[in-house]
């Protein structure tokens, strides 16, 4: 019974794979240049693995995603705690955050190229912009939601303001911060691929773009699948983290 439940999520992808095979190699209904067959994709993946390009592009994308997230967290978490704690600062900054937040990160690419050139730092900047606001907004929210009774309890146990910030507000906001990071990472992944298509010479986005220009649809699909898998891995990691944090 349990095994059946475990297998349930794999049924639809398997059916999809079969349909895909039938439409392409199986019954030759769709030509290669419209949709590559599973075999084309597999061959492309094999070539990319054996010549090391897949590893190179994937690791380049991952480095960018991680640098962007770490940079965004380093800015957004402390700033969010300060803004969530001091109401005046929150009011002061709320309008500018609300204006900047909905701007698609991709629209910063022209400036990021101007400021950082083509390459790693330019992409990292776009990813930073992409996830900094969600982490910030979630952190502010988490800090504000700290139960007042817990703060008062800590005060009557001898906690000073610093103790309250580090021992009460931070742990109580942590689940919200993790949720913010989760949202941030999915945005970051999208930004990375888009940024790599324009302002980079490496990474999965770059790989997809060049493959499409060189007419290699199999490679395009390989890139798409790898991005999806990275997304799943991050999601899994965050779910594990949340299981530990949510009491």
């Amino acid at each position, binding site marked *: 019974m349990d095994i059946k439940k475990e297998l349930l999520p794999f049924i639809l992808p398997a059916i999809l794979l079969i349909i895909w095979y039938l439409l392409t190699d199986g019954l030759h209904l769709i030509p290669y240049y419209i949709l590559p067959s599973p075999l084309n994709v597999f061959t492309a993946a094999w070539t990319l693995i054996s010549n090391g390009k897949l590893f190179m592009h994937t690791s380049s994308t991952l480095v960018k995603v991680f640098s962007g997230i770490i940079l965004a967290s380093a800015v957004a978490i402390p700033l969010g705690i300060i803004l969530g704690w001091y109401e005046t600062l929150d009011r002061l900054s709320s309008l500018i955050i609300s204006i900047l937040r909905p701007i698609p990160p991709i629209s910063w690419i022209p400036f990021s190229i101007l400021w950082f050139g083509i390459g790693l730092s330019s992409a990292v900047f776009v990813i930073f912009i992409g996830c900094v606001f969600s982490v910030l907004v979630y952190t502010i929210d988490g800090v504000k939601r700290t139960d007042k009774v817990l703060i008062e309890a800590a005060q009557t146990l001898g906690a000073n303001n610093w103790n309250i910030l580090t021992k009460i507000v931070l742990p109580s906001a942590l689940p919200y911060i993790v949720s913010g990071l989760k949202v941030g990472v999915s945005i970051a992944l999208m930004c990375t691929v888009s940024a790599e298509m324009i302002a980079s010479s490496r990474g999965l986005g770059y790989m997809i773009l060049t493959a499409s220009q060189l007419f290699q649809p199999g490679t395009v699909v390989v890139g798409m699948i790898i991005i999806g898998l990275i997304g799943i891995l991050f999601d899994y990691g965050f779910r594990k983290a949340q299981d530990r*944090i949510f009491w």
Partner: protein
Amino acid sequence: MAIDIKNVSKSFITKDKDFMALKDVNLHVDDGELICLLGPSGCGKTTLLRMVAGLEKPDEGEIYDRGELVEGPSKERGFIFQQYSLFPWLNVLDNVMFGLNLSGEHSKEENLAAAERYLERVGLADFKYSYPHELSGGMKQRVAIIRSLLNHTPVLLMDEPFSAVDMLNRHTLQEQLIGVWKRFETTILFVTHDVDEAVYLADKIVIMDKRPGRIKDVVEVPLERPRQRESREFLDFQDEVEKLLGVWEP
């Protein structure tokens, strides 16, 4: 004298009007006394307790704790809240040691030993690694009380701490409270709206009234400890306190 409340008044501004929560309250509490503040809801008993803790400031008058003006919350005046106030991300042991670890007066090992000793005394030794959400309401309040007492608080302020606990457990908790109160020689100010609870616990009962919140009467409880709820004297005195309280408004 532990706590000295002098001419304290406090009003709150609500949507439509100012409302006088407390007017000209005077009260002296001696060291080691267990005082119950008893009154109907809206009589300002919780507000008074919060002001003693330093969690709220009086509009007029002053409150002194052993001669010193109360200006803010401090570990000198522990507080047990009506709502559960354990830190949900810490297990029972870490909750209980919270104040001790802050002060850094003793080593971690000493704190741990003390915490384990007291958890054992109230029958919570098996739950030391449990998290608050795994505990019953009564257990949570017991942990909260130990958390304050272990912090060597000379004054413990309790705001209807057992009101959410069922009657049987409430009686056990009251009995345990008397036990730890005697052992720690803590001064306790205990807010309740339950006459039975006040008569069981208190050395003195401060009877309060509302509109505006004020002290109506202070009565000494003439009963020997341990008190027997079924005894003639207990029931008679309970009637007396009920009469002093006057008509309850639902």
